[in-house]
C-alpha cells in the first residue's frame, strides 16, 4: 500500500512545481485604482478599455462578498499580485520561448500534445500568453486563436462588439474584479460556416505565490460555424492561498455549434471563482463539458442563455471533492426564446471529508414557449466524513414548459465492490472502477487522450485517499 502511495505522490509532483522566473513587470501587492491604471498602461491599451476597467473596479469595491456558497473569508485580497508579466513579447515560434518557461511546459507535455494532433496551442504562464500557435490551415480559413490582449489590438472591432456583453462587469463581485484587472486568456473567432476540425486547446497555469490569475476568454462563433475549445490546468502547490477569477464569454451566433471543455485541476490552495456564460442564438448549440477535481474551493456554474428560437444547451458537470476541498459547482440554463432545449447532467464524488455541492438554475422566462428542459444530479459519497448537497432552482414562467429534474445521492455499494473483488480486483481497484463508471457520462464526451488523462487523474485522487 505504501509503495502505491509513493508512486502516486511522484506522479503528482510532476505537476506541482515552482520555477524561479524573473518577472519583468509586476504590480505591487493589493488592488487600488493605481494598480488598474498601471495594468492598462503596461499593456498599452486603448482608452475605452482603461475606462471599462476603472468602472469595473468601482463596482468591485461597492459589491459585497457573496455570503452563500463556499467559505471566502480566508481570501486576502490585499496580498495578491494582480498583474505579472513573465516575458516581454508574444512568441510565435516554440524555439523563441525562453528556456525556463519552455521547461515548465515540457513537464506539462504541451508541445507533445500539439505535435500529435491538436490544432492550436495558447498556453498561459501566469498572466500573459507567452506562447501560441495556430496551424496554418486554420489561419487560412480565417480562424483566429490568440491571446486576448493581442486580439484587443489586432481585432478591435470584433473585440469591442462582443467583449463584456455576455458577462457584464457588474454581473458579480468576481466578474467585476476580472473586468478590472483581466490579463491573458484566449480569443477565438470562427468565421461564418467554418468548421474547425480539431479541438483548440489552451493550458492555463498559475505560478508564483499569491498570484491572482484573471484571464479573460472570449469565443465568438459566427453563423453556421463549429468549434471545440479545451482548457485544462495544473498549478504548483503553495501554502498560502491563490485566487483564480476568470471570465469566459461565448457567443454562439445562429446555427453555430460550440463545445467548451474544461478539466480543472488547480492545486488544493487555489480559490477558483469563475464566471462562464454563453449566449446561444437561433438554432445554435452550446455545450459546457466541465470537470473539477482540483482547487480548495471552486464556485463555478457554467451558464447558457438561450436567446434564439430553437437553441440547444447542454451542460455536463462532474466534480470530485477530496480532503479540504469544496466543489460548489453546477449549471444554469436560462430559456429566453421559444422552442429551446436544455439538458443538465451533474455527477459529483465526495470523499475524505470533502464537500460536493450542486447548485443550478433553470429558468423559463415569459414568452419562451415550447421549452423542454431536464436536470439530472447524481452524487456519490465514499465515506461518512464527506458531504453532498444539491440546490436546484427551477423557475418556470410559461404554461407549456416540459421540465424534469431528478437527483440521487448514494454510496458505493458493498455488493458491487464484493462482486468486483470476487473477480480478482483489489478493493481499491474495485472502488476506482465504480467511480470511473459513475463519471463515464463525462469521460465519454472527451477526446480520447483527455479521457485517458482524466481517468488517470481520478485514479490518482482515489489512490491518494485510500493508500
Amino acid at each position: 500500500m505504501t509503495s502505491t502511495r509513493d508512486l502516486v505522490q511522484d506522479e503528482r509532483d510532476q505537476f506541482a512545481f515552482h520555477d524561479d522566473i524573473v518577472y519583468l513587470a509586476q504590480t505591487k501587492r493589493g488592488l487600488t485604482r493605481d494598480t488598474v491604471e498601471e495594468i492598462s498602461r503596461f499593456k498599452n491599451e486603448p482608452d475605452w478599455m482603461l475606462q471599462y476597467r476603472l468602472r469595473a473596479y468601482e463596482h468591485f469595491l461597492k459589491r459585497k462578498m457573496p455570503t452563500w456558497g463556499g467559505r471566502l473569508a480566508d481570501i486576502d485580497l490585499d496580498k495578491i499580485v494582480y498583474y505579472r508579466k513573465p516575458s516581454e513579447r508574444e512568441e510565435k515560434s516554440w524555439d523563441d520561448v525562453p528556456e525556463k518557461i519552455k521547461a515548465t511546459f515540457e513537464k506539462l507535455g504541451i508541445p507533445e500534445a500539439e505535435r500529435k494532433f491538436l490544432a492550436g496551442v495558447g498556453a498561459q504562464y501566469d498572466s500573459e500568453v507567452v506562447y501560441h500557435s495556430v496551424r496554418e490551415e486554420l489561419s487560412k480559413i480565417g480562424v483566429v486563436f490568440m491571446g486576448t490582449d493581442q486580439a484587443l489590438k489586432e481585432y478591435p472591432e470584433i473585440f469591442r462588439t462582443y467583449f463584456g456583453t455576455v458577462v457584464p462587469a457588474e454581473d458579480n463581485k468576481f466578474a467585476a474584479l476580472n473586468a478590472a484587472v483581466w490579463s491573458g486568456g484566449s480569443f477565438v473567432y470562427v468565421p461564418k460556416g467554418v468548421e474547425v476540425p480539431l479541438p483548440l486547446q489552451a493550458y492555463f497555469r498559475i505560478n508564483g505565490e499569491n498570484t491572482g490569475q484573471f484571464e479573460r476568454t472570449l469565443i465568438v462563433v459566427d453563423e453556421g460555424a463549429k468549434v471545440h475549445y479545451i482548457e485544462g490546468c495544473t498549478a504548483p502547490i503553495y501554502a498560502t492561498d491563490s485566487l483564480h477569477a476568470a471570465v469566459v464569454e461565448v457567443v454562439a451566433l445562429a446555427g453555430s455549434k460550440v463545445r467548451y471543455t474544461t478539466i480543472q485541476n488547480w492545486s488544493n490552495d487555489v480559490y477558483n471563482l469563475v464566471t462562464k456564460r454563453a449566449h446561444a442564438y437561433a438554432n445554435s448549440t452550446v455545450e459546457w463539458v466541465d470537470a473539477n477535481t482540483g482547487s480548495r474551493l471552486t464556485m463555478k456554474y457554467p451558464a447558457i442563455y438561450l436567446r434564439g428560437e430553437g437553441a440547444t444547451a447542454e451542460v455536463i458537470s462532474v466534480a470530485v471533492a477530496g480532503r479540504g476541498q469544496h466543489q460548489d459547482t453546477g449549471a444554469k440554463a436560462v430559456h429566453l426564446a421559444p422552442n429551446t432545449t436544455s439538458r443538465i447532467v451533474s455527477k459529483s464524488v465526495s470523499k475524505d471529508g470533502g464537500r460536493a455541492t450542486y447548485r443550478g438554475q433553470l429558468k423559463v422566462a415569459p414568452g419562451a414557449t415550447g421549452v423542454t428542459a431536464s436536470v439530472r444530479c447524481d452524487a456519490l459519497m465514499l465515506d461518512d466524513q464527506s458531504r453532498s448537497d444539491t440546490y436546484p432552482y427551477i423557475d418556470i414562467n410559461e404554461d407549456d414548459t416540459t421540465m424534469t429534474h431528478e437527483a440521487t445521492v448514494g454510496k458505493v455499494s458493498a455488493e458491487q465492490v464484493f462482486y468486483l473483488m470476487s473477480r480478482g480486483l483489489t478493493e481499491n481497484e474495485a472502488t476506482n472502477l465504480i467511480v470511473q463508471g459513475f463519471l463515464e457520462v463525462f469521460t465519454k464526451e472527451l477526446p480520447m487522450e483527455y479521457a485517458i488523462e482524466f481517468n488517470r487523474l481520478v485514479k490518482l485522487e482515489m489512490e491518494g485517499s485510500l493508500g
Partner: protein
Amino acid sequence: MTEIVEPSPVDAPPVKAPRRLRADLPFVFADRVLVETLVAERREPAWLLEDRLAALALFEALPVESSQLYTPYVDLRAASLDGAAPYVVTGAAAASSSSGLPEGVAGLLEIDEDVVSVAALSDEARAAGVRLLTLGELVATDERLARELLAGGALIPVDEKLAELSRAAWSQGVLVHVPAGVRVEQPIVVRWAVGAPRSVIGRTLIVLGDGAEASVVEELVTSGGVISGAQAMLCATTEIRLGAHARLAMASLQETGPDQVVFQQRRADIGEAADLRWALAQLGARLVRSRVDNVLAGDRSTVEQVEIVFGSSDQLHDLTSYTRHVGRDTTGQLMSKGVLMDRARTYMKGLIQIEKTAIGTDSYLGEFGMNLSKAARAVAIPSLEIDQPDCRRAAHSSSVGPIDETQLFYLESRGIAPDDARKFIVLGFLEPVVARVPLEEAQDRLREALEAKWDAGLAGTGAATAA
C-alpha cells in the same frame, strides 16, 4: 359548557402604510408594548411574560428569510397589514362535554375571530384523558403543564422570525393532548374562522404521548367579519410532539378569503418509531408564507407530507419544507403539487438534511407543478444536504409541465368533453392530498372547493382553456 368571553379589542389608531421593500414585514405593531399589553390584559404569569419577551428579542433580531437558499424569493409586497390590529383578550374554553359535536368527529374546537364558538369533545375521548382546550384556559387552569409546553418555545424553529412572533404575541391558542397509549378513533377538528381586518396571532400544540394515536383536521376558513378589500392576518404555529410509537394524521385545509395574509410555521418532533402524516391543502388567501419543519429525532421515525396548492388570480403561495433526519433508519416521504392559473405564483422550496447520525435514512422529496396560464410562475427548489452516505435512499425529483396531451386525448377518445377532461386531469393531479384527509366530510368539502375554484377560473379569465 362552552364559555364565551366577549372581546375587548385594543384598537390601534390607523397607521399610514410606509413604503416597503420585498422583504419588509407588512406591519409595525409587534413590539414590547404589545407584548406587555397582552400579558397585563390577559393576567398572565411572569414566566410567560419572560418567554414572550425572549421570543420578541429573537423576532426583532431575525431576518424574514433565514435560509440563504431562498432569500431572493421573499416577496411580501402583496400584504399591507397596518390596519389589521392584533387581538389581545380572546375567548378561553376547554371542551368539557360532547354537546355541539358533529357526527363522526371526536372533538371540535371552533375559534371565530376572538371568540370560541364551539368547544366539544366526545365522552369517550374525555374519559380516556384526551384534552382539547385553548392555551388561555390551559394557562389559567394547569399552569404547570402550560409552562412545560410553552416556556422556551422548544417546538418553534429557532431561526424563524414569524414563528417567534407567534410565540411573543399569541392571543389565541389550542392544545390537543392525547395521553400515552390512548387511541382516538375519530378525528379532532380545529377550526379557525378569520378574515375581519384584524391580526390573529395564534399557536396550536398537538402532543401525543407514547403509543398514542389520533387524527387532527385543521380548517382555516372565513369568518363573518370579512370586509371586502380590507386585509387580515393569520400568523400561527403548529407545534407537534410525538412520543415513541405515536401516530398522528394531520390535515390542514386553508380556504381563507382573498384579502387574507397567512403566515404558518409548523414544526414536528417525531419520536422513536413514531409516524406523522401531513395532508396540507392551500387554496385561499392572497399571500401565504408557510414553513414546515419535520425533525425525525427518534430511530425508525417516519413522516409523510403531501401538500397541494391551487393558485389563481394574483395569489402567492410561498411554501418551505425542511426535513431533518437525525435518528437511525428514519423515513421521509415528501411531495408538493401545485396547479397554477391566471397570474398565480407558487414557490415550492424543500430541503432534506441527513445528519451524520442518520444512518439508514430513506428520504424522498418531490415537487411537481402544473402551469395552466402563461402569466403564472412556478418555482421549485428541492434541495438535499447530506452528511451521511449510508442511506437506503436520498433522492428528489421535480417536474413542471402543462396538462398531459396524451391523457387529454385518452379521455376525449372516451367521449368526455375537453373542458371536463381538463378538469378531471387537474383534480386527479391534486387527489393524493384529498384522499389523505382523515375525515370523509372534509374530503368531500375539499373536492368541492377544488372543483369550484377550477370552474371559477374557467369562467373568469379563460386561462384554463389556454392550456
